[in-house]
C-alpha cells in the first residue's frame, strides 16, 4: 500500500492508501489525507490541490493536458495536480500556504 506524507503548515501528515488511489477522491469522502489536503473542484480547473512533489516523482505518470495547461512552468518546480493522479507508489508532497492559481488561458496556450 502506498505510504503518503503530506507537509502542510510545517506539519507532516502520514497515512497509507490503497493502490491506485486518487488523494482528492479520498479527501472527498473524508478519509486521509482529509482534512489536511487542500482541494477544490476535483476537475483540474482550480489548482487548489496543487502540491510540490518532494519524493516519489519517478513513479508518477507524465503530466496530462490539464496539468500542462494549468501549471505550465511550475511543473518544472515539481508541482502536480493531485486530482489528476492515481497513486501506485509512496509519495511525499508539500502544499504551500497560499494555493497556486491557474495560468491565464493565453499563456497556457503557449505551453
Amino acid at each position, binding site marked *: 500500500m502506498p505510504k503518503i506524507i503530506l507537509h502542510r503548515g510545517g506539519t507532516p501528515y502520514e497515512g497509507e492508501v490503497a493502490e491506485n488511489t486518487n488523494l*482528492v*477522491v479520498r479527501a472527498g*469522502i473524508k478519509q486521509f489525507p482529509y482534512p489536511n489536503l487542500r482541494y477544490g*473542484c476535483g476537475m*483540474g*480547473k482550480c489548482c487548489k490541490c496543487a502540491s510540490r512533489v518532494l519524493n516519489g516523482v519517478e513513479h508518477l505518470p507524465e503530466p496530462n493536458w490539464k496539468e500542462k495547461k494549468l501549471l505550465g512552468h511550475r511543473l518544472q518546480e515539481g508541482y502536480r495536480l493531485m486530482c489528476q493522479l492515481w497513486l501506485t507508489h509512496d509519495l511525499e508532497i508539500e502544499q504551500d500556504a497560499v494555493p497556486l492559481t491557474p495560468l491565464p488561458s493565453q499563456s497556457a496556450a503557449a505551453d
Partner: protein
Amino acid sequence: MPQLMDKVQFRTALENAIKGKSANKAPFSIAWASGKLSRGHLARWAENHFHYVGPFADYLACIYARMPDRYVDAKDFLLANMYEEEIGGDRHTDLLIRFAEACGTTRERVMDPNNMSPTTRGLQSWCYAVSMREDPIVAVAGLVVGLESQVPSIYRKQTPTLREKYKFTDEEVEFFDLHIVSDEIHGERGYQIVLEHADTVDLQQRCLKICEIGAQMRLLYTTALYWDYVAKELPIEELGLVEPSVLAYERELLQA
C-alpha cells in the same frame, strides 16, 4: 434466508450486483470503443445523455430533502455532489454541450426534450421516481452506487478512443475527463452512505436489488441508443465483439 452483512461483504455484494449488467457490454458502448460510430451518432448520444444526467442534482435534491436530519454526513455528501455537478467548477452539462457542439449539433437541440428517445425519457422518469419515492438510502444505492459509480470505468474505456480514433481535442472531451475523477468521488460517497446506513437485512437487500435495476436501466438506455440511432447504418454483425448472451439479455429487456 439472507443474513446481515458486514461492510466489506456488503460492498462486494453491491459491486457484484452492478457488474453483471455493466453498460460497457452494450453494443453502443462496444461500437464507441472500437471507433465505429460517426460524429452524428455521438451527437444523438449527447442529445439523449443531457436529459438523463442534466437533472442529476434535481434527483439528489429530492433524496436530500427526505434524508433524515440525523444522517448529517449523508446529507453533506449529497449536497457536495449537487454543488460539484452545478457550480463547483464548470457546470457539468455545459461540458457535455461543448462535446455535443463538436459533434455537429447545437445547444438548442441538446436542451430540447423533444430530442430524447422514449427510452431515455423512461430512464429519466425512473430516476425521478426513485429519488421521490424510495427510502432515501435505497435511492442513493440506486442512483449513486448503481448508476453514477459506473461512470469512471465506462469513460476510462471511451475517452482514449475519442482522442485517438475520433480525433477530438482535449477541450472537446473534457466532459469525460472530469467524470473519471468526479464520479469516482461521487460514487465513493454513495458507497459510504449506503454502507453506513443500510443496517438491516431488509435495507441491504433492497439496496442490492435497486443497484441491479439501476444497472439494468442504464444498459437498457445504452442499448436503445444503438437500436434507435446506429443499427441501420452499422448492423450488429459488424460489431463482431458482442457476446451472444449479452445481446439476448438486451433484447429481453427491450421486449419486456
